[in-house]
C-alpha cells in the first residue's frame, strides 16, 4: 500500500510540474497582455515600456519561467511556495485563492451532500424494484435534470423564488449586504459563523446557499442516481448476494454488504465530478455572485492576469489529483484487487 501511494505521489509531482510549465507557455502565447489595462489612460510608449519591464514581460520566456519558479532577489519563487502577486489587484495570489476556494468548497460539498441524500436512497430503491412507477419517474428525472445547463436552472430558480415570489434572498453573494461577516477563520461562512457563535450569520449564510445548492444538487443527482442504480443492480444479481439471501441472512445485513460492494463506482463518479466542479461550478457561482474559485479563474483569464491564471490552475489541478489519489486509496481499501491494476 505504501509503495502504491508513493508511486502515485511521484507521478503526481511530475504531472504538476508538467502542467505548470505547459500553462506558463500557453499563457504567453495568448494574444494580449495586461499592460494596457494597468497604464490606463496614459499609454505613452515610455510608460508602456516601463510597465512592461516591471512585470518582467520584456525578458525571454525562459528567463521569466526561471523567475517564476526560483524567484529573484528577495522575492521567493514557486518552488519556495510563493504563487506570486496578482497583476490586476497587487494582492498575493495565495490570499485571493484563499478567499475564493472555501466558498467553492462550501458550495459544492453541500451540493454533493444534498445530491447524495436524494440519489442514494432513490437509486437503491429503484434498483430493488426495477420497472415500477418510481423507477420510471426517477429515470425520467435523471434524463431531465441533466438536460438543461445548470446556469439556466439557476436563472429560472432566481426568477421564480426571488423575483416572482420573493422567498429567496437576492442572488448577491454569500451574506446580506448589511450583515457583518463573521471573523474569518476557515473562509467558509457557515463554519466561521458557528465558530464565532454568530447564529444570525449562520442562518443568513444558509439562506443564501439554498438556491445555488439546490441548482447544483439537481444537476448532480441525476448521474449519481443512475450510477447507484446500475451498480446496485449488478451487485444484487451477483453470486454473493444470491448466496447470502439463500442462506437466510437478515435483509438489513444483506443491504449493508451490497451497499459496500456497490460503493466503488459511485465513489469514483462522485470524486471525478467533485474534481470537475472545483472549476466547473463557475456558472452557478456567477448566477448567484458567490465569488468562488471558478469565478476567480474566469476573471483571471479575462484579465490576462498571468500569475492568477497560473495559481488557480495549479491549485485546482493539485486538488483534483489529490482527490483522485485518495479515491484510488479508498478503492484499494474497498477492493484489494484494484491495488494491482
Amino acid at each position, binding site marked *: 500500500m505504501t509503495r502504491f501511494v508513493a508511486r502515485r505521489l511521484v507521478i503526481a509531482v511530475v504531472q504538476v510540474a508538467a502542467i505548470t510549465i505547459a500553462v506558463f507557455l500557453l499563457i504567453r502565447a495568448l494574444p494580449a497582455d495586461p*499592460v*494596457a489595462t494597468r*497604464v490606463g*489612460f496614459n499609454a505613452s510608449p515610455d510608460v508602456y515600456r516601463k*510597465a512592461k519591464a516591471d512585470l518582467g514581460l520584456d525578458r525571454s520566456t525562459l528567463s521569466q519561467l526561471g523567475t517564476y519558479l526560483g524567484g529573484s532577489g*528577495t522575492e521567493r519563487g514557486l518552488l519556495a511556495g510563493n504563487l506570486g502577486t496578482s497583476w490586476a489587484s*497587487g494582492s498575493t495570489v495565495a490570499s485571493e485563492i484563499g478567499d475564493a476556494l472555501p466558498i467553492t468548497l462550501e458550495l459544492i460539498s453541500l451540493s454533493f451532500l444534498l445530491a447524495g441524500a436524494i440519489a442514494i436512497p432513490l437509486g437503491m430503491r429503484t434498483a430493488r424494484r426495477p420497472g415500477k412507477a418510481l423507477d420510471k419517474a426517477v429515470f425520467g428525472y435523471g434524463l431531465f435534470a441533466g438536460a438543461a445547463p445548470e446556469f439556466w436552472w439557476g436563472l429560472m430558480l432566481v426568477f421564480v423564488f426571488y423575483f416572482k415570489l420573493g422567498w429567496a434572498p437576492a442572488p448577491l453573494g454569500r451574506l*446580506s449586504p*448589511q450583515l457583518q461577516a463573521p471573523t474569518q477563520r476557515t473562509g467558509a461562512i457557515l463554519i466561521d459563523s458557528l465558530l464565532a457563535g454568530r447564529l444570525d450569520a449562520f442562518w443568513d449564510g444558509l439562506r443564501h446557499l439554498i438556491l445555488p445548492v439546490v441548482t447544483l444538487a439537481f444537476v448532480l443527482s441525476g448521474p449519481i442516481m443512475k450510477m447507484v442504480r446500475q451498480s446496485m443492480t449488478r451487485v444484487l444479481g451477483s453470486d454473493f448476494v444470491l448466496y447470502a439471501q439463500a442462506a437466510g441472512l437478515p435483509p438489513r445485513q444483506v443491504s449493508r454488504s451490497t451497499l459496500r460492494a456497490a460503493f466503488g463506482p459511485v465513489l469514483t463518479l462522485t470524486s471525478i465530478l467533485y474534481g470537475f466542479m472545483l472549476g466547473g461550478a463557475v456558472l452557478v457561482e456567477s448566477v448567484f455572485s458567490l*465569488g468562488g474559485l471558478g469565478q476567480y479563474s474566469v476573471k483571471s483569464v479575462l484579465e490576462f492576469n498571468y500569475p492568477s491564471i497560473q495559481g488557480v490552475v495549479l491549485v485546482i489541478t493539485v486538488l483534483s489529483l489529490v482527490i483522485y489519489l485518495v479515491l484510488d486509496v479508498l478503492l484499494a481499501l474497498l477492493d484489494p484487487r484494484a491495488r494491482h491494476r
Partner: protein
Amino acid sequence: MRRLSILAGATAVLAASAVLTAPTRAAAAAGEITVLAEDIPAGLDYDGPSAAIPTSQTGMVNLMEPLVYYKTKPANSEGIGLLSFGFADANFEGRLAESWTYDPKTFTWTFKLRKGVKGCGGATFNADDVVYTFARAKSVSGAAPIGWFLSNVASIANFTPDVLGADKAKAAEAQKLGDEVKKIDDFTVAIKQSAPNKLFLPVLTIFGLGIFDKETMEKNKTATDPWSHEFANNTNVPSFGPYCLDKWTKNSEFVVKGNTDYYRGAPKVTRVVYRKVPQSSNRLAAVQRGEAQLVERLTPKEFDSVRKAKGVKVAGVIGNENLFVHMNFKTPPFDNVKVRQAVAYALDYKKIIANGYFGQATKSKGPIPSSYPGFSVSKNQYDTNIEKAKTLLKEAGYKDKGDILLSYVSEKQSILLPIATQIKADLAKVGIKVKLDPLPQTQYGDRQLVKKDLQFALNDQEKPIGVDAGYATLLFFVSSEKGGLNNMVNYSSPKVDDLFAKVKNEADDKTRNTELAEIQDQLMADLAWLPVVELKTQWAFSDKLTGLAWHPDSSIRWNDLKYAG
C-alpha cells in the same frame, strides 16, 4: 433505510421553507447606506495597477483629499449637483489649500495650507505631506505613474519624460524632486511650472494627485518599497479625506466610516458599505427591494424600468460620456475619409437613442464632451442620410469584402450588443457587411492602446478626466509623434498638431477657445472619431437619499449625500 430517508427529506423541506420564509432583515440604521457596483476597489494606490478601474477610483476619492476642487453649481433639473468647470480662480475652492496666489513671471503657485486638519489615524496635515505626494509621484515607482503624468500634463517644472528614460542612472536623477515643489514653511508650499498652462488647477482636482498622509505612509514602507505602494494598494491609503477605511474584503466588500475629525465637518452618511454585485440586474433588484440605497452602472433599459418605481429615484446628467465609433486610419477601407463619412451618414441615430438608450441620450455634436470648457459645435455635422452614404461609398470605390469586424468590450454587452446589432443592420442597408466581435476588456484595451489595430470599434468608455477640450485633444487626437497619448485610431493631422502646440501654453482664454474650435472643426471634417450620442450618467437610489452630485470621474462622493432612512 427508507424510513430514514423520508424523515431526512421531510426535515430538509421544513428547514428549507423556514429559512426561505424568514423575514428579510430590517433596513440599515439611519446614516448608513449600502452602495452596489459591478466591482469594489481592487487597489487604492493611484500609481498602482488598478487605478484605471472606475470602482477603484471611487475608493480613492472618498478616502483622499485634494489641494483644491471645483466649486459646486446649482443642481440640474433631475436634482444632480454640478460643478463649475473652468480655469479661473473663481471656479475653484480651497480644500487642503486654504488660498493660493500665482506669479505670472515665474509661473509659480504659492499655496497657503489649512491648519488643524486631521487624518484617520490622527495624523495632522502640513506642507511635508504635499511635498511627499509630489516626490512620490515623480519617483514613478508604481505600476502606472499617474501622479507624474498629471503633473507633466500641467507643465509642472521638471516633471518630464526623462524620469522614464532608458538610461537608468539619468532616469534616477530625474526622478528626484527638486525645488519645483518647495516647502516654504509648515503651512506654505510653492509649485513652479515650466510654462503657463491652464491645466494646473484642474489636474489638482483629479484623484491622481490626492494628498497622502506622509507620516502613516512612511511607517509602512519597506526596504524594497520605499514609497509604500504595497501598503497603499492593498491595506489602506492614509490621507485626510471624509471617510476612513473600516473593512476591505477584496472582491467582495469595502466598508468605510465617516472621519469624525474631517475638517469640513463629519459626513452625514456615517457608514457606507460598498459591495460588489457583478450583474446589473441583481443590483437593480436590490435597490427595488430596499436592500441597497444607491446602485451604479445599470443598463439604460434597467434605469428606464425603475424610473417610475415606488421608493426608487432615477436621476442623471449628460456629463462627459459619449458613444463613439472608432475607424482605424491605417486599415482599409477606413483610411478613406469618404468611407468614414458614409458610415456617419448611414447610422440611424434616432433608433440608437430610442432603442439603445431609452431616450436618455442626445446626438453628439463633436468628439469633446459638451459640458467641457473649450467645447464648440463643429460646422461639420452628419445626420442620417442613406442616399448620401451610398453616393459617398460609390465615389470611394468601395467594394464589400464582408470581412469588417466591429469590436466592442464584451463585459458591456448588455448595453452595446443591441446598439452593435442596430449598426450592423444600418450598414448592411448601404452595402457594408460587418461581423460583431466582442472582446474581453483586457484584450480590447491591449489592442486599442498598445497594438492600435482595432479596425472598427464601438466604445462608450472614453472620457477625458481632465475637464478641458485641450486635454481631450492631447489625449486622443494629437498624433503619436507629437506626443499624443491615446491616439487609438492612428489619426494624424498636421493642422491639429500645430493648433494644439499653440493651445498648450496659450495664456489668453479667448484665443485658446478659437484655436480649440478650429481643432474641433477639423476633427469632425476628418471624422477622427465618429461621435454617435452623448449619454446620461445615471444612478438609481432610494428616494430618501439626497445630495447626489456628478464629478468628472463619475464616482459619487459619499460625503455629498444625506440619507433620511
